[in-house]
C-alpha cells in the first residue's frame, strides 16, 4: 500500500525521549495527544525505551483478573494501564518503543474505517526497519510484526483526547519466564504452558541477529523506516513546556492513582467453562477449561478457535501422562467448548 506518487509526505515532529522511567516511557504520549489535538503541536513520532522493566495493562483489562499481583510485587514492577488496546505486556529495557500521535485525516482513506486501517498503514515503517536489519519480517494483521511466523513486535492503538495514539515496540530480547510469571495462573502447569508457548511463538532481535543493534541504531532505523515508506517527514523537536507541565500535573497523577490501575470489581460472572484465556500471539491462546459436571481442570492451546493441544491436570480422570489425544471423548467435548468460546 503506498500513497499516490508525487505527494510530499506531511511533516511530523520527532521526539527522541531516550531511556526513561516507565511512566514517562509509556504515558508521555497522552500529554502530546492533547497538544496535537488542539493544534499546538504537529503530528508526532516519539521514540523511547524504558529504563526499567514494568507491566502494562490494556485499557480494558482488570488487573486482578490478568496479573499475579504477588509476583509483580515480588519483582518490584510498576503496573501501568495504557490508553490503547490489547493485552498485558511485560516491557523491559531491551525494547525500543515507537509511539505515533496524530489527528484524524493523517491516514489516507475514509475517516472512521477503524484501527486496523491505521495499523496497516503505519506499521510499514517498523516493518521497513526490520527489513533493513536483514530480517524477513511481515505484518500479521491486525497488529503483529512477525519473523518467520514468530512475533517480534506488538502494536495497539486508541483515541485519546481528540487525537489518535498508535504504540508499538521491537523486542530486543525475550524473557519468557518473566512474561509468563507475572500473569495470573489457575494452575502451576498453566504457567509452564505459557512459557513454552511464548518461547515457541515469540522471537527477539538478539535471537534473530548475530549482533543486535545497540544504542541509537534502532531509533534511527525506525525513523528512517517511516520516512522511507513516505509516511511522513520527520523534523527533530523537543517536548513543549505545556506538554511537560501537563504530564506532571495531569497524566502522571492519574496513572499513579490506585483507582486507575485497579478498576472497580466487575459483576459476578455466570459460571463459565473457559476460566482463563491468555493470548500468546496472533490467534493462539492458552486456555484453562472446566468441563460442566466435572471437577477437573483442563489446559489447552487453541489456534484460530481449533484445539492444538489438550491436557488434563486435575480431576479423577487426569492420567499421569495428562495429554489427551485426538478422538478421546473429552477432547471432542472440549473442542466444542473452545469453538463456542472463540466464536463468541
Amino acid at each position, binding site marked *: 500500500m503506498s500513497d499516490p506518487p508525487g505527494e510530499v509526505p506531511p511533516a511530523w515532529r520527532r521526539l527522541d525521549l531516550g531511556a526513561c522511567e516507565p511512566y514517562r516511557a509509556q504515558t508521555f504520549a497522552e500529554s502530546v495527544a492533547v497538544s496535537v489535538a488542539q493544534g499546538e503541536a504537529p503530528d508526532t513520532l516519539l521514540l523511547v525505551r524504558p529504563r526499567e522493566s514494568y507491566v502494562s495493562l490494556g485499557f480494558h483489562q482488570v488487573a486482578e483478573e490478568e496479573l499475579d499481583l504477588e509476583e509483580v510485587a515480588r519483582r518490584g514492577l510498576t503496573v501501568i494501564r495504557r490508553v490503547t488496546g490489547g493485552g498485558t505486556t511485560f516491557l523491559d529495557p531491551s525494547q525500543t518503543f515507537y509511539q505515533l500521535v496524530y489527528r484524524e485525516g493523517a491516514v489516507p482513506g475514509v475517516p472512521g474505517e477503524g*484501527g486496523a486501517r491505521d495499523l496497516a498503514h503505519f506499521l510499514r515503517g517498523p516493518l521497513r526497519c526490520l527489513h533493513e536489519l536483514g530480517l524477513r519480517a511481515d505484518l500479521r494483521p491486525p497488529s503483529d510484526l512477525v519473523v518467520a511466523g514468530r512475533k517480534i513486535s506488538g502494536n*495497539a492503538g486508541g483515541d*485519546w483526547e481528540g487525537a489518535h495514539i498508535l504504540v508499538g515496540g521491537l523486542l530486543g530480547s525475550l524473557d519468557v519466564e518473566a512474561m509468563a510469571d507475572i500473569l495470573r495462573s489457575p494452575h502451576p502447569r498453566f504457567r509452564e504452558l505459557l512459557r513454552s508457548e511464548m518461547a515457541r511463538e515469540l522471537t527477539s532481535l538478539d535471537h534473530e541477529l548475530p549482533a543486535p543493534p545497540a544504542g541509537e541504531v534502532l531509533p534511527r532505523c525506525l525513523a528512517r523506516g517511516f520516512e522511507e515508506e513516505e509516511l511522513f517527514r520527520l523534523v527533530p523537536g523537543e517536548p513543549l513546556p505545556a506538554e511537560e507541565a501537563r504530564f506532571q500535573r495531569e497524566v502522571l497523577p492519574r496513572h499513579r492513582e490506585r483507582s486507575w490501575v485497579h478498576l472497580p470489581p466487575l459483576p459476578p460472572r455466570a459460571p463459565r467453562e473457559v476460566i482463563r484465556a491468555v493470548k500468546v500471539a496472533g490467534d493462539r491462546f492458552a486456555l484453562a477449561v472446566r468441563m460442566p459436571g466435572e471437577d477437573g481442570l483442563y489446559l489447552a492451546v487453541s489456534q484460530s478457535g481449533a484445539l492444538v493441544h489438550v491436557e488434563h491436570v486435575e480431576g479423577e480422570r487426569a492420567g499421569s501422562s495428562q495429554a489427551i489425544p485426538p478422538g478421546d471423548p473429552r477432547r471432542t467435548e472440549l473442542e466444542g467448548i473452545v469453538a463456542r468460546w472463540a466464536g463468541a
Partner: protein
Amino acid sequence: MGERDREGGSASGTDPRQTLPEASGPRSMEMQACPVPQGLWARRESDHSFTVGLREETRQKVGRITAFRGPVPGSSYRSGDPVVSIESDKWVGHFPLPMDGIVVAVNESLYQDPSPINRDPQGSGWLFRYRPTGIHGPEADPPPSRTQTPSA
C-alpha cells in the same frame, strides 16, 4: 472506531474507572429507534429515558468488538462527554453522550461478554440508558416534555 466515527466535535478518552455494576435492562422496546450522531442510535422509552446502542453500520465498520466499558449509573454527564469505550482489533475508541443527561442504567452483562454488541447491536447489545437533562444535544434534541430533569 469510537471517536473515529465521530461526525464532528471532539471527545476525550473515557476513563476506564467509569464503571459501576448496577444496571437493569431497558423497560420498553416499543419506541422507534432514531439516529443520533457519533455512530450511536437512541430510542425513547416509556419512562422518557433513552436507550443507546451502537449503530449496525458502525459495528460493521469497527469490526469484532472485544471489550466494553460504560458510564456510571446515577452520574450526570454533559453532551460530548465520552461515556463509552469499546475495543476492536487492539484499538480503543470512545463514544460521547449525545446530550446532557443522567445515566440510569448500563448493560453490565457486556463487561464480561461483549459479544451481544456484535450479534445484536440494536437489541441485546444495547449499551446504556440515560435521561436528558438539558437541550444541548446536537441533533436529537427531544421535545421539551422529555427534557425535564429526572428525579432518578
